[in-house]
């Protein structure tokens, strides 16, 4: 089981308190009716599904209930960085380098 530190509560809690929300930084289209089918497919379904360093959304559903983002290595399952929703995506390449990958 993963141990996850909620950036709002400031405590490390077991994974059971959280719900994973999938890949992070996928923005809902600002002009939905102006999008083509290809763009909708990309937004709704296509995922990077990286083997390695991956940014994803989590929600502290059995705690404060808020969404936040995390960068995790999907091979070792180790968290490399946790940050609040709305903050920009960190540089995944440099995080990977720091983690020695």
């Amino acid at each position, binding site marked *: *089981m*993963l141990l996850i530190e909620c950036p709002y509560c400031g405590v490390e809690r077991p*994974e*059971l308190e959280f*719900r*994973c929300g*999938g*890949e992070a930084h996928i923005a809902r289209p600002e002009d939905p009716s102006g999008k083509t*089918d*290809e763009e*909708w*497919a*990309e937004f*709704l*379904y*296509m*995922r*990077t*599904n*990286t*083997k390695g360093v*991956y940014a*994803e959304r989590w929600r502290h559903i059995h705690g404060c209930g808020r969404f936040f983002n995390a960068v*995790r290595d*999907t*091979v*070792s*399952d180790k968290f490399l960085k946790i940050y609040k929703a709305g903050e920009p995506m960190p540089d995944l390449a440099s995080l990977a380098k720091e983690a020695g990958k």
Partner: protein
Amino acid sequence: MARYSFLELAKNAFSAHKNWGRQWRAPEPKAEYDIVIVGAGGHGLATAYYLASEHGLKNIAVLDKGWLGGGNTGRNTTIVRSNYLWEESAALYQHAIDLWEGLSQELNYNVMYSQRGVMMLAHTVHDIQVFKRHIHANRLAGVQNEWLTPEEAREFCPPLNIQKNIRYPVMGAALQRVGGTARHDAVAWGYARGADSLGVDIIQNCAVTGIRRGADGAVEGVETAKGFIKAKKVGVVAAGHTSVLMEMAGVRVPLESNPLQALVSEPVKPAFPCVVMSNTIHAYISQSDKGELVIGAGTDQFVSYSQTGGIHITTHTIDAICELFPMFRRMRMLRNWGGIVDVTPDRSPIIGKTPVPGLYVNCGWGTGGFKATPGSGHVFAHTIAKDEPHPINAPFTLDRFRTGRLIDEAAAAAVAH
């Protein structure tokens, strides 16, 4: 290839079974093939076998980064059934069952296909409604599936606890009598031996590190650990690593890879007559011919390639098994493991062409690909050989995520996500 037969067995008995030949060769890769299949699991080997046997193609290689059948083929819980909801899926999985029934004879290899019945338990009113809908849809599609009361379910599977005082009492069950199990390793080995004897090169320990495309965008071949291999057509059948391989060709796919766990108990005498699954409380169980209880658990909720999975997932499954089958409470588990499954948004596979000419993909089987192995290989071979899908896999395109014609099997998939 020496055919296996009673005579062959008797002959080898005289030399204490020390002179059986190898089942397949271990060739070095040639510089060029007509077709390269990436992934020597059940689906990939079946594809190569049918390309050679049904379409008469000879210059084929199957590459794998490890040993053949060492991924999800060797890690799954070997359940075979076809009671899916939509006509498209019922046709696909029933096609596989039709092939399963003659597979041991066709391959001259005992895949130990046993139609012992697959029973899916209903624990809530919602389950009952969903399963009855499946049963009616299946009957219209010509797929066998029937409803059992809790008493009938216990009659079919005597160890089942149908008392009302458990957390999720059994309220009924859907039974597919033609469903059952097969020996997963034998399926990979049988297809490997069959394909090899038809001239297919199976190259193990040869990871694909890149997919090369020409100026016109079409596939030129694959970069591997053993150098560049030229290929006119490349079929990717790589389960949990499909996203990684497709990225090498610049194609994005609607997949997420999750660990799915299973475990086996110590072997005991025959005690469990069928396969029982429960989506609601995340447990499925059968007994192998060797005597072990084979238990399937759920997936982790996040993307991972770790091939392990959280221990709380298996704990949850064991809780359910102990409550449904109290006689297993003191069984000891021998080992548990995880495999990486590639899950699509609609829980149906993707079998077909890609935007890249010459590149084909067979993926997205999620938590339940083993049951479809022969059918999947059969229609994928047709797709590659003819450069157009077989009528059965025509609805299972990558393009359905653009058109919106999804095949939603979330309720029929074995594992609740």
